[in-house]
């Protein structure tokens, strides 16, 4: 089956599906057909389809659980006017906890608390689990056997990412010896004044 015949089928499938589709899932749909496309054919057609959407209001995006058809963020202004409800907002505490889980997984609640310097409420972890952004990865082999948390595929899907590698890079941590010695002077004079 050539790409020209395959493309509209993929389009129909992506539009009809309520979750992202993988190449494998799509491949399986053709099993038993007389004309059965190979996985490479599907990949090729998907690629061409994505290009076709370049000048449209939609885009074909690959996220963690597969390919999905979505509205381009550029048109969000108008689309959001269709709904009265505002998008949910998340607190800084929740986002910091989520960031720690995303970048430092597997991580325990205690480790998150150490870095944030405050306690993490169990409600917050529950909210993250209910959103299906965070899941338990098992238990750490230390006294108390605390739960180790990690992020889910749904987390990546939600934030429009294909893999954890696509997360923004962390700011660097500088060594203490990188500061200029002359500044140490201010510190000393300051200390003596007080």
């Amino acid at each position, binding site marked *: 089956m050539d790409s020209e015949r395959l493309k509209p089928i993929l389009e129909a499938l992506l*539009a*009809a599906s309520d979750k992202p589709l993988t190449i494998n899932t799509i491949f399986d749909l053709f099993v038993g057909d007389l004309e059965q496309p190979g996985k490479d054919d599907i990949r090729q057609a998907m690629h061409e389809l994505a290009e076709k959407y370049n000048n449209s209001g*939609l885009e074909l995006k690959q996220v963690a659980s597969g390919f*999905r*058809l*979505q*509205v381009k*963020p550029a048109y*969000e202004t108008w*689309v*959001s006017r269709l709904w009265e409800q505002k*998008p*949910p907002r*998340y*607190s*800084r*505490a929740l*986002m*910091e906890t*989520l*960031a*720690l889980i*995303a*970048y430092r997984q597997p991580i325990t609640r205690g480790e998150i608390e150490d*870095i*944030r*310097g*405050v*306690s993490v409420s169990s*409600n917050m972890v529950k909210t993250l689990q*209910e959103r299906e952004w965070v899941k338990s990865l098992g238990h750490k082999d230390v006294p108390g056997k605390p739960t180790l948390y990690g992020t889910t595929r749904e987390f990546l*899907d*939600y*934030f*429009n*990412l294909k893999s954890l590698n696509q*997360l*923004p890079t*962390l*700011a660097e*941590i*500088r*060594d*203490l*010896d*990188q*500061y200029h010695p002359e*500044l*140490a002077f*201010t*510190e000393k004079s*300051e*200390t003596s*004044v*007080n």
Partner: protein
Amino acid sequence: MENFANTASNQSEMPFALVQGEPLTVIPQDLYIPPDALLVFLEAFEGPLDLLLYLIKRQNLDVLNIPIAAITRQYMEYIELMEELELELAAEYLVMASMLAEIKSRMLLPRPISSDDEDDPRAELIRRLQEYEQFKKAAEDLDALDRLEREIHLTNIEIPAFEIDMPLPQVQIKDLLAAFRDVVNRAEQFASHHVEREPLSVRERMVSVLEKISADEFTSFYDFFDASEGRMGVVVSFLAILELIKESLIEMVQSEPYAPIYVKAKS
């Protein structure tokens, strides 16, 4: 919350400057502060590290070389204010206070000339501040990503139903129960965050703030605070302003972080 953080921090800068050196005046009897509303103060900071980081950034200081004495003093002023307002201070704030005091006293001891990092009493604090700052930034970056429900909308393309015999989803009663439990739990969580009806004193102050401002010109944020009313009076003004922002009756303008804040009526 970001707005709150900004206003809260700048606000706290102001009463210190005005109140310091003056004996604390008698708290006006008619000013009652709802305890829930005061949480706004505490919630402006995500904990002691966040508060410290704020104090450092406000003065354009390098995290790698914090003037411990000055920072400790400013930190303690915040703690005292929170205690004075009878906020239930999280234990972490007090732990940090004693850590700062300890570092400060160790800084006063003479150090060998060839000191490396290990000998700097601030090393551990600096490491923690940097690590926290790293994730604070990561959280902001994460929050800025395009995401579902906000920038990204999924398609809702119709499948002509008469053509396709779609099986109906199967549901078990435990699914239904779980859904109800979740929604009730969430609703309870939400309810506990409801701030009580604010008392008259804040409402009155809201009116006087509105009388003071106009839509055409900016009034300095600091003009709304009168040191002679004491800290409680200042807090009521602050809450009134927060409430007015929430109700979109006034606008706040700050040209850059830590710059002076101006208030004007929403036109």
